[in-house]
């Protein structure tokens, strides 16, 4: 049975609401289903007290969810677009992330902030960004970015049960993607990457929707006789260096791909880490593929021109092979 990404997120939330009375959903329009329909029907099923609409007050609702998490609830807060998380930043950065540490371990913030990011055609400059790099800079946060419906199901459930503040980034382009739900599978551990496609010549490290792009690129590369291994990071913070190390030690070439702008992006951190820790393994410099350094434009032609696609990954992978001689 195939389900869309949205249906699978809804199912994960539904099951966690049923499983644990401390779980509560809140956010703008969530009782009505949310802007993308992820929470549709959950207020009817679990009650208006547990699935609550909020005013358009990102600063206050992020604090509200954090304060409630300190006092026994396990809130799942929806920030409609990651672009709006700019308004949540004081709380997320100064309070939520630091509570456990500043209190010397007396308090924890079991909070999941679900948000969606990325460009998907015409959402323009303030509804299309990939801002994950800002959050991986903050000690105390966990940052998760699933790449498929099936991954999203397990990762969301794991995130809700983790007991730490988690930013859960969904890519709007994946919302209509269909996938299987395999019953009885163990929930994934937060902080573990997975091999989305095994290969031997070059490692492509990606997350979120870029994993799909990387898989397309890997297919094209295979047709040209290049075997690419695709790592789906699943979690950006913490970063699973063990999986990256095992792969790069095998392929000796690494390419990091994300939709966010390259400048100061997650790829810079990953590339630096590979360079420092795996220098002797590398046959070529670590390459990065990402978005051009401009706001996401409105016109489809312009948006396409800016965003990285599978052809960019193929080009970079070929360059790595050539550089390797």
């Amino acid at each position: 049975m195939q389900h869309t990404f949205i249906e699978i997120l809804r199912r994960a939330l539904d099951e966690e609401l049923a499983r644990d009375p401390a779980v509560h959903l809140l956010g703008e329009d969530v009782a009505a289903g949310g802007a993308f329909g992820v929470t549709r029907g959950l207020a009817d099923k679990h009650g208006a007290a547990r699935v609550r609409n909020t005013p358009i007050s990102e600063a206050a609702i992020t604090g509200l969810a954090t304060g409630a998490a300190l006092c026994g609830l396990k809130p799942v807060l929806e920030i409609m677009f990651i672009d709006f998380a700019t308004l949540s930043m004081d709380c997320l950065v100064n309070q939520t992330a630091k509570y456990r540490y500043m209190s010397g371990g007396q308090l924890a913030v079991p909070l999941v902030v679900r948000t969606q990011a990325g460009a998907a055609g015409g959402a323009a400059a303030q509804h299309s960004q990939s801002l994950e790099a800002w959050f991986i800079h903050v000690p105390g946060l966990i940052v998760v970015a699933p790449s498929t419906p099936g991954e999203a199901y397990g990762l969301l459930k794991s995130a809700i049960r983790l007991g730490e503040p988690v930013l859960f980034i969904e890519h709007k382009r994946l919302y209509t993607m269909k996938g299987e739900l395999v019953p009885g599978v163990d929930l994934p551990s937060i902080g573990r990457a997975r091999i989305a496609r095994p290969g031997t010549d070059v490692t492509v490290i990606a997350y979120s929707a870029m994993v799909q792009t990387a898989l397309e690129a890997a297919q094209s590369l295979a047709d040209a006789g290049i075997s690419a291994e695709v790592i789906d990071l699943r979690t950006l913070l913490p970063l699973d260096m063990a999986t990256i190390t095992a792969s790069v030690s095998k392929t000796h070439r690494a390419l990091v791909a994300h939709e966010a702008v390259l400048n100061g992006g997650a790829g810079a951190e990953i590339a630096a880490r590979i360079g420092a820790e795996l220098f002797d393994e590398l046959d070529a410099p670590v390459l990065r593929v990402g978005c051009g350094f401009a706001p996401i434009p409105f016109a489809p032609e312009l948006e396409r021109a800016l965003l990285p696609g599978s052809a960019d990954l193929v080009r970079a992978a070929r360059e790595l092979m050539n550089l390797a001689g």
Partner: protein
Amino acid sequence: MYAALWRIRLFEGQVQRLAAAGEIPGFPHLSTGQEAVAVGVCTQLEREDVLFTSHRGHGHVLAKGSDMEATFAEILGRQTGLCGGRGGSMHLVDAANGVLGATGVVAGNLSLAAGAAWAAQAQGRENISVAFFGDGATGAGAFHETLNLAALWRLPVLFVCENNGYAEFTSREEHSNVKHVSSFAAPYGIATQTIDGNDLPTVIAAAREAIATLRRGAGPYLLECMTFRMAGHYVGDSQQYRSKEELAEIRDKCPIERLKRHLMERGVKAEELDAIGERAKVEVLRAVERARAAPRPDPATVLDHVYRAPALAAIRG
């Protein structure tokens, strides 16, 4: 109650002394002169009620009943401090006693307090939540967002504004066109009162009324306490922006002097009150000396408590 005021006054005096001597790291903010608000409100709370204070929060923590020595040790950055030296003056937490934190970002604690109130409401507990803030916080959007949300959800949260007339170094006349913070309550449908925050009996009576309203489930309450900051914004602030006349008037309005006059008018002898002050002095000095003698934190533990141990303790980011 008289002792409680003195405990805070003398505690802050010791903070000032040791900060000026370079023994306390950072820049502590003193609540000297605002003791009656802390004592009047916090003594009316149950242990299970929670509070979120601001950067000027030592008095609230002491008045809520946290251990004086552990509180001072935290301000000194010691291992035996409330937070093991990770929080400091601006981030005191004593969870078991309902002190759920202090924020150094003005207005950042209001929504947290509303969230704690939501948790109590959702779990059917009768506890209330208190947010202490200064009049400077009313300039922040988070203040208005939180008032609206708390009123909308009828949350049992008590917003206590310590209106000391200053947002850091800028007087209220210069930072807001609204004279009284309580004026912001009406549009949101929040019960409110502006009181003389330097008169302890007045604060106690108002806090009781507000807390009773909250426990009835009638929604949030905004209590504006007019008070005076006897010290500067932080230790070392030369207060060039305040006139000599203003500073002289502040001393006349001292909440301790006023309670003393109030009690003496009711027949309490000056010697009895002086003895209470002396006992508080002995207690504070002892707590301070013990805190100063406490061990410093082990640098090897610096990465502990970023995440839960041991599952995520090895996270390097």
